[in-house]
């Protein structure tokens, strides 16, 4: 009988496909939140498998902060073409122009928190009832409490202390009009699982994840890429380094690491030896002990 068991990556893959199909069955108007980062690429890849030979039956949604790596946008557009799906863009710049949000001020100003309003506006405007995300429980302590199907009230807020119990694989996506759900098909994957799977399936990812020469500046313990948004502080200087990115967020806040890993195998190898969490290079999470929880309560990814 011993051959009737799944390798853990196969089990995670089947679990994620189950969640994606469940979203399709329980909701009218779902979208996949797509940032062009590895986790959302993985979710799109799994969705392709979940509905094959049909196309993915819902669009991708990108919350565009305007502070993108150009490579990410190119990659996003290539992915759309390959999958044959539509794209919905929520633009943070538009939210700013319309006065919905105001640009942060100060030294470490980012557009990270502004995304919340843009995301919720886009969800409302497009009558989205379930936004599928690439969030993983191993990422952060507030995320460790997430359900596969996570309820958001009509203000888009998460109430972590009052979540619906989720037993076996019976997910309850029932909701009232105006409320929506977030679904997290790769909840149970770790960063290492993601890389091992990307490697195994040879999934295309943006070049930014591979080691490459880039102009960077040393800030907050990591290499922040040079861009039109970068303002040099006193004592900082732009240098060229061989680096790669472990996660992709806004170009203004995503720190790179020095690396020679230029193949998927080398990346997986490198990640397995890492002694820092992947979000350790994201200044957005360093603000306070509950930075993620606070943002998530308001409606963040």
């Amino acid at each position: 009988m011993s051959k009737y068991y799944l390798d853990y990556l196969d089990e995670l893959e089947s679990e994620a496909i189950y969640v994606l199909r469940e979203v399709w069955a329980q909701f009218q108007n779902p979208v996949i939140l797509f940032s062009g980062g590895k986790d959302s690429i993985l979710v799109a890849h799994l969705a392709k498998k979940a509905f094959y030979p049909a196309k993915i039956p819902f669009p991708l949604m990108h919350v565009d902060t305007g502070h993108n790596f150009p490579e990410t946008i190119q990659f996003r557009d290539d992915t759309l073409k390959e999958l044959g799906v539509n794209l919905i863009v929520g633009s943070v710049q538009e939210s700013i122009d319309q006065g919905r949000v105001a640009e942060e001020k100060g030294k470490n100003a980012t557009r990270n928190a502004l995304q919340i309003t843009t995301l919720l506006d886009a969800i409302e405007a497009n009558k989205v009832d379930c936004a599928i995300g690439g969030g993983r429980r191993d990422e952060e302590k507030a995320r460790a409490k997430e359900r596969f199907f996570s309820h958001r009230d009509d203000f888009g807020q998460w109430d972590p202390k009052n979540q619906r119990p989720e037993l076996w694989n019976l997910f309850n996506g029932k909701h009232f009009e105006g409320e929506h759900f977030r679904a997290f098909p790769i909840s149970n994957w770790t960063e290492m699982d993601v890389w091992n799977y990307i490697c195994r399936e040879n999934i295309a990812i943006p070049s930014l994840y591979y080691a490459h020469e880039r102009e960077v500046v040393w800030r907050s313990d990591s290499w922040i890429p040079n861009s039109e948004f970068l303002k040099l502080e006193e004592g900082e200087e732009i240098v060229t380094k061989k680096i790669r990115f472990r996660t992709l967020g806004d170009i203004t806040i995503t720190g790179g690491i020095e690396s020679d890993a230029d193949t998927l195998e080398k990346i997986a190898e490198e990640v397995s030896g890492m002694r820092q969490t992947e979000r350790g290079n994201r200044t957005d999470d360093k603000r306070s002990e509950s930075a993620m929880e606070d943002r998530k309560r308001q409606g963040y990814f």
Partner: protein
Amino acid sequence: MKLNNNQLLRFTTAGSVDDGKSTLIGRLLYDSKSIFEDQLEAIENTSLKKGHDGVDLALFTDGLKDEREQGITIDVAYRYFTTPKRKFIIADTPGHIQYTRNMVTGASTANAAIILIDARHGVIEQTKRHSFIASLLQIPHLVVCINKMDLVDYKEEVYDNIVKQFQDFSSKLLVKDVRFIPISALLGDNVVNRSKNMEWYNGAPLLHTLETIHISSDFNSVDARFPVQTVLRPQRDGFIDYRGYAGRISSGIFRPGDEVTVMPSGFTSKIKTVEGPKGEIEEAYAPMSISMTLEDDIDIGRGDMIVRSNNKPEPIQDLEVMLCWMNNSAAKPRTKYTVRHTSNNQTAMIKEVIYKIDIETLGRNFDDKDMKMNDICKVKIRTTKPLMVDSYRENRATGSLILIDENTNETVAAGMII
């Protein structure tokens, strides 16, 4: 580190504030090198701020702001670690009586449960409650860790007495596999490494036990059950007449050529193809997500179940269920609820509460029939249309259900079909 052909083990740990559960999880993560430097640094800072000596491993399991402030676990938290032998998912649940529902939630997907006993106190009510829930949820393997052995001078008699106490009481439970390990989570004895302080213990340390528990034969390979989640109908060239029935296999094995029956309609056909995530396959088994096509064009949709024709589940409308109530508002008899069973939704009514389990004594109370938050009761439920069920003891996937309150949309109860 390349990990191939590794299994996933999901286990639950139940415990309350002082029995060392958080310390044990912290120890497993720390000693298996699953903790990152920045996490360690954060914990060191917090330990210092709180005035603890050294690093408080328990802080690794802190979650939400309120939990940190109150020093308790409120909700289920999931944690992950990997060794060269297996990948582990821990469902870390609070152990206090008022969180029974969270223990039940964590237990629902677990292959194994760790029960922690404080060596100074032996088997207490909480131990019984946790073991009962593990048995109720049919977790196949129980690992009883007798913790804080350092505080009883690592004495063998203390351990032996507690093992005996536990065996006396657990003979009434339905657990197939129980193991005992004397540990000190705080000092690391028998957690990852074998303890030098307890040479009298011949068994394996906890981690090795978790790495080697045989789980492949826990799944039900006999009763082939495939609840249809959704139907794939690609509107594109080459697939015009294609109808793929997509879902996750609950139990058993399906192969092309198998004679199958669609429940509840009773139509029969043969499996034409089975497609897994990597393409066409010759056999599929739980918990694989697949899609299958049949030889005949039959009307099949979500909520239907495809089964092997020579082994069908029972379609029934009157169910006896062990129900755990999970909502702040108590159960209302004769109110309509939505029952969710596999991919099927039906309207249902709780006809009768037969008895309530006294969670302190594990006795049956035939007088108090109010079902409130955290209560576990044996009830009779009637559904408007038949459900295709197996008993929970035989099949966790087709023997389980949840109730949803139609007025609030909340999940109010979890049930195990008897």
